[in-house]
């Protein structure tokens, strides 16, 4: 911050500059806040409005009726269950495989380790998004796994694994080796040492990776949209596009309440991580 008052004799031009920069800052903050807050207003207000439209309106009589309709909709609720199955499956697999791999990368000198890390960074950023889905779809098609939850879980795991491994490796490299060494000296097998000494130590890191993986699979649209076929297998991200009237317009009341319901777990998990571990910023995290 500018602090002209600290100088012995603040001149007039200093004061003008001070107020101008204050004014510019206030204007910038207002514009940025408006830009980031305005699109969210709709999501916060419309679910509680019995006559929800695309407009932002403060509901005259706030109601939970829209949520009751969602809860009464068997298809919508089943889609949330599907999302949870995919999210939990992906979470377990990513966390387990990434922890094992990260431990190996941090604590051994497997030949070609550096090459593996280099290749992982390179190819995980190259084989991504819609482009990657072209060969992956054909592969899943030939494996006969189209329209299965397993396919979605495996493909999501493949995509999230590199980043998860790097987060875990950074975490493990920050731990002292002495516990592991003394376990081995006292005659524990590598697996016993991993299970009884390492796992309890890396649990915070695993929790962060697990939540990150869950949130990612929970929110993924493209992979289930391409790999799944039947309505009863669809997760909420795809199912949300079926709340349309016969005329083809979305049923706003249902869609908005469902959106909010679907977004809440992500919000709670974020707040949980923030409160429990502090929001640590990892270089490579997104999607």
């Amino acid at each position, binding site marked *: 911050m500018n602090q002209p008052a600290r100088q012995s004799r603040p001149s007039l031009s200093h004061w003008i500059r001070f107020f101008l920069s204050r004014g510019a800052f206030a204007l910038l903050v207002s514009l940025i806040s408006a830009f980031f807050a305005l699109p969210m207003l709709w999501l916060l207000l419309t679910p509680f409005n019995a006559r929800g439209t695309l407009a932002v309106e403060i509901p005259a009589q706030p109601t939970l009726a829209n949520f009751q309709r969602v809860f009464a909709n068997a298809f919508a609720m089943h889609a949330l269950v599907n999302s949870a199955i995919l999210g939990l499956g992906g979470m377990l697999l990513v966390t387990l495989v990434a922890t094992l791999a990260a431990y190996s990368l941090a604590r051994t000198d497997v030949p070609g380790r550096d090459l593996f890390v280099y290749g992982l960074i390179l190819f995980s950023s190259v084989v991504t*998004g819609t*482009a990657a889905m072209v060969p992956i779809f054909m592969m899943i098609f030939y494996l006969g796994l189209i329209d299965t939850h397993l396919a979605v879980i495996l493909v999501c795991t493949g995509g999230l694994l590199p980043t998860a491994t790097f987060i875990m490796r950074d975490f493990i490299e920050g731990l002292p080796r002495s516990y592991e060494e003394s376990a081995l000296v006292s005659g524990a097998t590598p697996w016993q040492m991993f299970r009884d000494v390492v796992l309890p130590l890396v649990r915070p890191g695993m929790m962060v990776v697990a939540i990150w993986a869950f949130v990612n699979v929970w929110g993924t649209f493209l992979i289930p949209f391409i790999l799944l076929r039947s309505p009863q297998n669809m997760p909420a991200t795809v199912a949300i596009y079926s709340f349309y009237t016969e005329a083809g317009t979305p049923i706003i009341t249902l869609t908005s309440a469902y*959106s*909010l319901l679907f977004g809440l777990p992500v919000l709670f998990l974020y707040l949980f991580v923030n409160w429990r571990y502090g929001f640590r910023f990892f270089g490579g995290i997104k999607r």
Partner: protein
Amino acid sequence: MTRESLVLSRRTGFLFLLPALFFVGVFIIFPFVWVFWLSFTNQTLTGVTAVEPQFVGLANYLRLFNLESWMDRGEFGNALVISAQFVFGSALIGQVGLGLLIAWAFHNRKGAVRETVYTLIILAWIVPDVVVAFTWMAFLDRDAGTLNAVLGLLNLPRVDWLIEHPVLSIILYNTWRGTAFSMLLFSSALASIPPSYMETAEVAGASAWQKFKDIVFPLIRNHVLTDVILITLWTFNTFTPFLITGGGPAYKSELVSIHTFRIAFQYFEFGRGGAIAVTMMLVNLVLALIYLSVLRRQEVRR
């Protein structure tokens, strides 16, 4: 144990690595190799070419880069141009530029204002794609949308954003969606600059712009470079604008990612889709190699 750093033997270490090697091999390396093969065939999902795809050489690529028609609506060249506009607008100016501006504006500030602004921006980043897509469709709607309501308050004319300015719409959307990453990266980079540097500059009477240009930017240049490459890579590959405009109207907002999706998963032409996917991955490869060389340079410097 020969070296202090070894806890596990090589054999055990390899066993621990095995599941990850399986996933990386099957879901990253194999698709990368196979898509090259696909792009030289006329593979489809139904019909004769589904069972016995034929080798067609460079036919798919020649069609993609047929200079007479590739700038037509819905063709590959057109999608490349739209993607370039999208990356320039929402990645470089949007996410990187705005992220840097916000991080710089709040540098060395604490308190409720900063917390509120940061929370709003992070919120836009963590909410799932489909939820965000619906709120943005409502935000940009011609008749009821919040953006037009605000313009109305300012006595400005209503705009049918998604129809008249589809590319600008998805640029605004993607800026809103992803600025948090750059902002957080730059905030931590700025926080690592020793305060004494700034104090010296202040005593010397440097303006905010001079401080930024001569002291701050040289110190965080590598962070900016890293951020630019990562954001460009992610923005080039993102598919979510499809949820807002569907690539339309009349292919006017059809990014390369959406173009790939249409050819492969709506037309089921996997040979042609494969050729587009290969081209996308080669662009990604160039960006990733630049990224790795920046990382390596940083490590050498340390």
